[in-house]
């Protein structure tokens, strides 16, 4: 028997972002591992890739089953505010790291060769996307945690 939408248990925003953080972080590591294997040709042991892949599948299943079995808590104005701040912080961190890498590479005159192909581009874009996404959820959790722990 399937439950009606209104009868389903509520998935709190905090739990949702915890799951999302775990999912995006795992996806990020998976994509970065792929990028290292394809683009920079770093040898990564097979068992590391298999373990990462298994964790990714497990986290994906938990995330999607949680969604299927429950309904997401309605966000209010504070959660919107926190989400906006989380987005700003994640973009800020991404920009900071991009600038830091540019400075390090410019000052240190560091260079490395990358085998450019479609997969490298896709995996690079994927790693940036997933990094940004897990940072968003991470910052949201931090902002929600700060100052919200108090008993009645």
């Amino acid at each position, binding site marked *: 028997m399937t439950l009606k939408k209104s009868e389903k248990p509520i998935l709190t*925003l905090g739990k949702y972002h915890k799951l999302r953080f775990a999912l995006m972080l795992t996806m990020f590591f998976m994509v970065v591992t792929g990028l290292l294997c394809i683009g920079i040709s770093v040898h990564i042991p097979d068992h590391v890739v298999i373990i990462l892949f298994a964790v990714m599948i497990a986290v994906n299943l938990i995330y999607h089953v949680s969604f299927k079995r429950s309904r997401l*808590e309605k*966000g*209010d*104005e*504070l*959660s919107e*505010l926190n989400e906006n701040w989380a987005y700003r912080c994640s973009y800020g961190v991404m920009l900071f790291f991009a600038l830091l890498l540019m400075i390090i590479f410019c000052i240190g005159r560091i260079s490395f060769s990358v085998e450019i192909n479609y997969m490298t581009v896709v995996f690079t874009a994927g790693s940036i996307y997933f990094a940004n996404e897990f940072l968003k959820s991470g910052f949201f959790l931090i902002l*929600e945690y700060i*100052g*919200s722990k*108090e008993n*009645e």
Partner: protein
Amino acid sequence: MTMAALKTRIKELRALQGMTQEELAELAGVRRETVIRLERGQYNPSLKLAMDIAKIFSLSVEDIFSYEE
């Protein structure tokens, strides 16, 4: 320029009416976290939320929220 600090009487009024944070949050249509932040004066509510809370306690917005320089 210094920011004015928000002072609220939500905690006091809630205690007077024997209401929990969860109950107030449900009546105001927000999450408990929002009520906690409001009680601590860490969050400036929208005019709508301030009016909704005032309505719950049958008071005016000024009776509940005030700013301290």
